[in-house]
């Protein structure tokens, strides 16, 4: 382990000003997240979760894509291993995002750093990285912006789950298609041009094949690992 040179070790502060700035800067983004949270609440209710259960999930997990995937996999009885395992796999990218914060976060106390990372979500992480990379010195920016995401996400979940409870037959409103539509929009956002073709094509083919032969929802993890494996074995890049 090499010690970073002095100009590479930013002098990061952690205080209320950072929390407040992070929160306020993130409010416009959090409004967008709230729209998504309403959709999550409706779909969670449709999958059989109560308002309280959906809200508990949003408040403690705080990971949009993973929560939607959990709701998609939800069944009666709950396939515990599949749900928790898939959530873990989807969220493994947070390891990289947390690592990117290290140059600044190693200046914070462990308590400040490890409490802050709970509030990591894609949107406020991107905002925080932009802030820190452009010379920002507020170590509490992730916490503040994360609190904005968290509060809007939780309230939106309550709203969506409450509204979802009064919808009768989901198919009548096309809601049975909504979860597919959500995943399609996530896929469009994650699409990264031609480099995505091979992993996604492999994932799709393996998922379709294993779905035909394996019981339950194991095809999700089989397809995902097959797709990610193509990136590992690729010789170029």
């Amino acid at each position, binding site marked *: 382990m090499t010690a970073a040179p002095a100009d590479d070790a930013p002098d990061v502060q952690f205080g209320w000003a950072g929390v407040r700035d992070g929160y306020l800067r993130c409010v416009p983004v959090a409004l*967008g997240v709230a*729209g*998504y949270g309403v*959709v999550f609440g409706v779909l969670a209710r449709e999958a*059989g979760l*109560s*308002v*309280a*259960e959906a809200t*508990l999930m949003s408040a*403690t*997990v*705080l990971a949009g*894509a*993973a929560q939607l*995937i959990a709701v*998609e996999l939800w069944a009666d009885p*709950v396939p*515990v291993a599949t749900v928790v395992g898939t959530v*873990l*796999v989807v969220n*493994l*990218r*947070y390891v*990289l*995002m*947390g690592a990117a914060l*290290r140059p600044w*976060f190693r200046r914070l106390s462990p308590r400040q*750093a490890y409490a802050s*990372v*709970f509030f990591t979500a894609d949107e406020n992480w991107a905002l925080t990285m932009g802030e820190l990379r452009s010379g920002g010195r507020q170590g509490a920016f992730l916490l503040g912006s994360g609190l904005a995401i968290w509060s809007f996400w939780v309230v939106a979940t309550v709203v969506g*789950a*409450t509204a979802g409870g009064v919808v009768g037959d989901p198919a009548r*409103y096309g*809601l049975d*298609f*909504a979860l*597919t*539509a*959500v*995943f*399609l*929009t*996530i*896929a*469009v956002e994650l699409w990264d041009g031609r480099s995505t073709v091979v*992993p*996604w094509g492999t*994932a*799709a083919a393996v*998922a*379709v094949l294993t779905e035909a032969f394996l019981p339950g929802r194991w095809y*999700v993890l089989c*397809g*995902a690992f097959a*797709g*990610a494996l193509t*990136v*590992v074995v690729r010789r170029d890049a």
Partner: protein
Amino acid sequence: MTRDPVALAPLTVGVVLAMAVVTYLTKAGGLWVLGRVTLPDRAERALDALPGAVVVSILAPAVVTADPPTWLAAGVVVLVARRTGNVLVALLLGVGAVLLFRGLL
């Protein structure tokens, strides 16, 4: 299924908390583990590719076995999401499209 809005089934709470724990471990893991080991470039790319691969793996069998109204509506969602970049607009138009195509086809 109509359930009491404030119901908290023990199994559900357990699964939710397990989800919370594994998610927190991934969020904190980057700070903790990567200070001690360096991740090979290939492993980083694989972690990066996983979310997309999971989403595609969920979608593929569902779309392959779906009906023509679903395929058409899926096309609408992808098109609108690419053009506008707005998730909610894409979602609303997609749900509207599936209702329309089901009525027509």
